[in-house]
């Protein structure tokens, strides 16, 4: 069995991802989080496999990762908790970010968690800068950013990876691509690893449903990065394609449109059992533990309050306490000049 990680720990990460994604999906089906919420089902292998190839620390000395909403496994590996995840998705007052933003991942630079994403591609630029800082300070740290395959079409993705390449930033860009058949007519590319040469960076192409293959590819890329050799593009093929699947259907790929990539969790489990690395009962135990943790976190978050509405104010600038509009004051201060935006002296 390849890879340097402990397979059962790796399975634990995969199982936690699956449990959280499953729970999130039922919240979505119940209308408790928006219908557009991405849960990350099917992204277990690439999420956990990649993240566990990095060095984790909680004191700002470890590696850094920027997960997409499809990568809760990576979020957990870097110390994010199911409770934080549900608090954010449910926009609780207790959530990191206090409900101001949707999505799973708040930035926590001590833990190496970067996010959440703005528009697609942006985090490649931001992670280029974070890993530039690692290099400029001669720190032994690397960064990893997850992206989708159509995200590679964005200007931000392009300028980000190109900048990282030029500056030999210790960055790993993981492109989560669909199967050949599922990728739509919106691109002529079928092999996203081939983009690497155009930027002068290294590349690897692996099965995104194979946790150990992803793990090994990222380990190799991280070693390269640590030894000063710069950026690597890792293509993880066979990830689930969501809406974009319809495109393929529209352009003749119809027969494959509904193709479901094989379940990466079941695959890993079967392999662990087949290679006698773990017993089915142990794995069941791991899964039960993950589900219990997730259930408890979700219940707790569901019971917590939303932020008070005035919390919309403030924090736009350094030291900005937030000033309510004059017409919301009780009673409105008649005769007084209506205040426009006021900034604190501190911020001036």
């Amino acid at each position, binding site marked *: 069995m390849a890879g340097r990680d402990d397979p059962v720990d790796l399975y634990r990460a995969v199982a936690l991802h699956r449990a959280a994604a499953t729970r999130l999906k039922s919240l979505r089906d119940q209308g408790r989080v*928006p219908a557009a919420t991405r849960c990350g089902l099917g992204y277990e292998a690439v999420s956990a496999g990649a993240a566990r190839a990095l060095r984790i620390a909680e004191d700002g000395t470890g590696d850094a990762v920027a997960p997409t909403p499809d990568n809760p496994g990576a979020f957990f590996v870097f110390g994010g908790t199911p409770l934080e995840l549900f608090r954010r998705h449910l*926009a609780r007052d207790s959530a990191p970010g*206090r*409900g*101001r*933003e*949707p*999505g799973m991942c708040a930035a926590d630079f001590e833990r190496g968690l970067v996010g959440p994403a*703005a*528009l*697609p*591609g942006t985090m490649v630029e931001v992670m280029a800068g974070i890993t530039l800082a690692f290099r400029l300070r001669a720190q032994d740290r690397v960064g990893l950013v997850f992206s989708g395959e*159509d*995200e590679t*079409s*964005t*200007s*931000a993705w392009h300028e980000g990876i190109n900048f990282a390449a030029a500056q030999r930033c210790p960055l790993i860009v993981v492109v989560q691509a669909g199967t050949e058949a599922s990728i*739509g*007519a*919106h*691109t002529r590319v079928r092999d996203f690893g081939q983009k690497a040469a155009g930027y002068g960076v290294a590349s690897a192409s692996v099965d995104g449903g194979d946790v150990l293959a992803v793990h090994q590819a990222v380990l190799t890329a991280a070693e390269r990065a640590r030894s000063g050799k710069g950026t690597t593009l890792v293509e993880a093929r066979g990830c689930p394609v969501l*809406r*974009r699947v*319809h*495109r393929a*259907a*529209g*352009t003749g790929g119809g027969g494959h449109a509904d193709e479901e990539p094989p379940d990466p969790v079941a695959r890993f489990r079967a392999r662990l059992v087949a290679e006698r690395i773990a017993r089915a009962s142990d794995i069941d135990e791991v899964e039960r533990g993950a589900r219990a943790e997730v259930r408890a976190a979700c219940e707790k978050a569901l019971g917590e309050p*939303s*932020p*008070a*509405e*005035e*919390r*919309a*104010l403030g924090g*736009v600038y350094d030291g900005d306490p937030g000033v309510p*509009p004059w*017409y*919301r004051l009780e009673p*409105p201060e*008649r005769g007084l000049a*209506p205040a*426009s*935006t006021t900034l604190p002296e501190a911020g001036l």
Partner: protein
Amino acid sequence: MTSNSRPEHLGKTLRGEPVTLLEAISEALFEEMERDSSVFLMGEDIGVYGGAFKVTRGFLDHFGAERVIDTPISEAGFTGAAAGAAHMGLRPVVEMQFMDFISPAYDVITNYLATSRYRGSGSVPVVVRGPVGGGNRGGPFHSQNVEMAFFHTPGLKIVYPSTSYDAKGLMKAAIRDDDPVIFEEHKSLYRAPHLREVLPSEDYVVPLGKARRARAGADATIVTYGAMVHASLQAAAALEKDDGVGIEVLDLRTLLPMDDAAIAESVKKTGRLLIVHEDTRTGGIAGEIAMRVNEQAFEWLDAPILRVTAIDSPVPYAGGLEDYFLPRVSDIITTCRYLVEY
């Protein structure tokens, strides 16, 4: 590959049935594509999927993949390509899946599309359309109003309808216009039941650059547009009922060019002006309106020009936060009272 009959769901007006604002826009696109073979569509997931809000549902089957083009996530790329196609005599309508995503195309729109005619490189009849606005728990990147990103750029036109009738007529006018037009569609109005309306079955346009008096009144003027037209009308009705005060509500419909004359005329009548916009405060369109009214009707002002707007922050996600962020009917009422009593 393409079928000839009009899809069922796009035939409501023909059948004399009421349509939503979203359906009015779909009908406008459909009819313009039928009328003029140079009109075609580009955008993300607009084909088989029919668009994130289903504005182009059924278009791919009817018009084929050459006129309903699914694009990569490349707002700059396909908007720039639209300019090129427009140079060759086509009339592209590009969809931003959410208008927030127009920002990567900011460069090409402001530097290329907007300046091409002036620079002698030819007209660029491109419509850039898509959903805008808050109140839908979309968070900071799926809720923006984008007018002020473009309002400062000479060469662009900006349209923002508030009714189904206007949406259809303005979309047709925008497509037929020879200048680039940014067309904002408020998500909360898309399917709002009270905007269902039976539209004329014959072809019509609503000319760009003309405001609409949504309500007449003598005591104060509200200038507004988009979803805030409805909030303002609600406030005006309440003020009429509770205070016996008559508020005139002007719906700009087109933000650029702006209908100065209509604004000045109303202000000269009422002497009091409130501007309401859903967009954030600092640098919002209220400023330009205040400036023009100063230039053109200062003597008629009996009170300061005031504004009700969103607060100066990104659009927050949590429901309560977003509700606080957005302007409220009660804010409009409070401010109107202040003005009328001034």
